[in-house]
């Protein structure tokens, strides 16, 4: 059920040009190649930005947005890289994936693979 809903989120969309459309933050814009060589963000730090949608540690299992906890690392990386490159069109994830570097995606893959695939509240 979750997987079916998730698939329905993935739509055939063309990617918008990389853009900063927020009139209030225009001067803060930097292109990804400018932080490519900055110190990478840790797997946990990057993964924690996902939890508002995907649940604490990626552990929401009863929502439209799918869980990430327990995803095999390789599958996570392949999926994110395809989102990043636009090879797998998705409405939200294309924009999100491309802000991460390859190294950060690998670290996140490690992190989520280590999280137990069960709802956050089921941990006593």
């Amino acid at each position, binding site marked *: 059920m979750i997987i079916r809903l998730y698939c329905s989120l993935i739509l055939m969309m063309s990617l918008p040009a990389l853009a900063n459309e927020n009139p209030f933050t225009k001067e803060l814009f930097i292109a990804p190649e400018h*932080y490519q060589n900055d110190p990478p963000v840790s797997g946990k730090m990057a993964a924690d*930005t996902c939890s508002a*949608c995907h649940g604490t540690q990626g552990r929401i299992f009863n929502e439209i947005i799918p869980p990430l906890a327990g995803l095999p690392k390789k599958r996570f990386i392949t999926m994110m890289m395809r989102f990043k490159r636009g090879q797998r069109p998705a409405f939200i994830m294309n924009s999100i994936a491309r*802000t991460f570097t390859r190294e950060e995606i690998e670290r996140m893959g490690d992190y989520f693979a280590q999280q137990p695939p069960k709802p956050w509240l089921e*941990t006593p």
Partner: protein
Amino acid sequence: MNQLNRRNLLKLMGISALSVTGLTGIRKQAFGASSAQVVIVGGGIGGITTAKYLRIINNEVNITVVEPNSLYTFCPGSNEVLVGEPLSDFQRTYDHTRHRYRLRLVADSVKDIDFNRKQVKTAGGENISYDYLVMSPGPDFIFDDIEGWSRELANRKILHAWKAGKQTLMLRDQIRAMPRGGVMVISPPVMPYRCPPAPYERASFVAEWMQKHNRRGKIIILDHNPGFVFQQQYIRYWTERRGFGTDHAMIEWVSSAQGGAVTELDAGKMTVTIRSGETIKADVINLIPRHTANRLTRNTGLTQGKDWVEVNHHDMSSLAQADVYVLGDTADFYIKTGKLASDQAKVIAQAIDARLHDKEPGQPLYANDCLAKAGSDFGMTLTETYRERDGKLLLAQSIQRPLPKESENVFLRHLLVSAADNWQRSFRRDVFD
């Protein structure tokens, strides 16, 4: 860390399973007298997320949250209350969070802070010592920008409803009591204020409600800003559904460039005067006050005379005082949202834990990713990522969708509404569960 192995190891070491709560590694033990003290001021999104995420990674530290209210009302999503959703959907007590994450909750407000003695003084007279202090007190509002308005008036008649709760219900009742064909004024303050799209979301939700209950009703947005977030999307939707730009427009927007900023209020006559000189009569006047740093941070010198508390964006530590972290709407951060406050909280939790282990805090990441609605059939997304270099923020990207072509896709529009509702639920769970 392999936590299953860790649990087994603890068992082998003779520590009973009772003292271990399992896969999170959270142990149920009494507060260690020798453990570090972290005091968090404010039990909102920023404060509670800091407490929860710090506890997940650190079993030993003592965490105290100072918050005078026993019930928290989420601001994100609360515009839905204006059009009929129950306020209780947005409210949480602290009972579950406090027990699950072993927080000491002090039901009091903070009166003063002694940074030299590292003590927080509450209004009730308690002195709470800290090793690390986290300030998440929310913003303060400025009323005297608009002549004729006051805090007192804002509590009973000319409401802001910008801190969800009692005023949200009062504003809902004012909207319901509007005469047929009545006029509602909504005035967003100058940026930055909490949740930039929310005044326009409010206008959009109320217009949808009016379409059913007060078809000739009208909303005028009198803006202190030249433009707004999701402007393209909102204007598109209002043009399509609410006659925007025509003589029968249900929503009108007067930008600051058109002289839309409200300068004067006459609460008796129910009129507002705007910078262009025009005076507008309305049945409901909803002014949103300009924001500034919380009084406590101003009185204790954390703001150093500025509008906001300046922080090192590497770990959200105060530039004014050592061992003090500041986050949320009171901190100097370009955009102020609940999602950003929760990301700042996670950065602070990791920074404090790193310092407790004599390590350097790692590279932070702040993602202001947001799913919003223009109406019950139109969802929108904002993906906005902030990175940090040398203590300063860099905006890595900011994308607002759907783009014009995409918004022709009705299926997509509905899907994003479901995703936005999902976001509301999952966000509240990430903070309080």
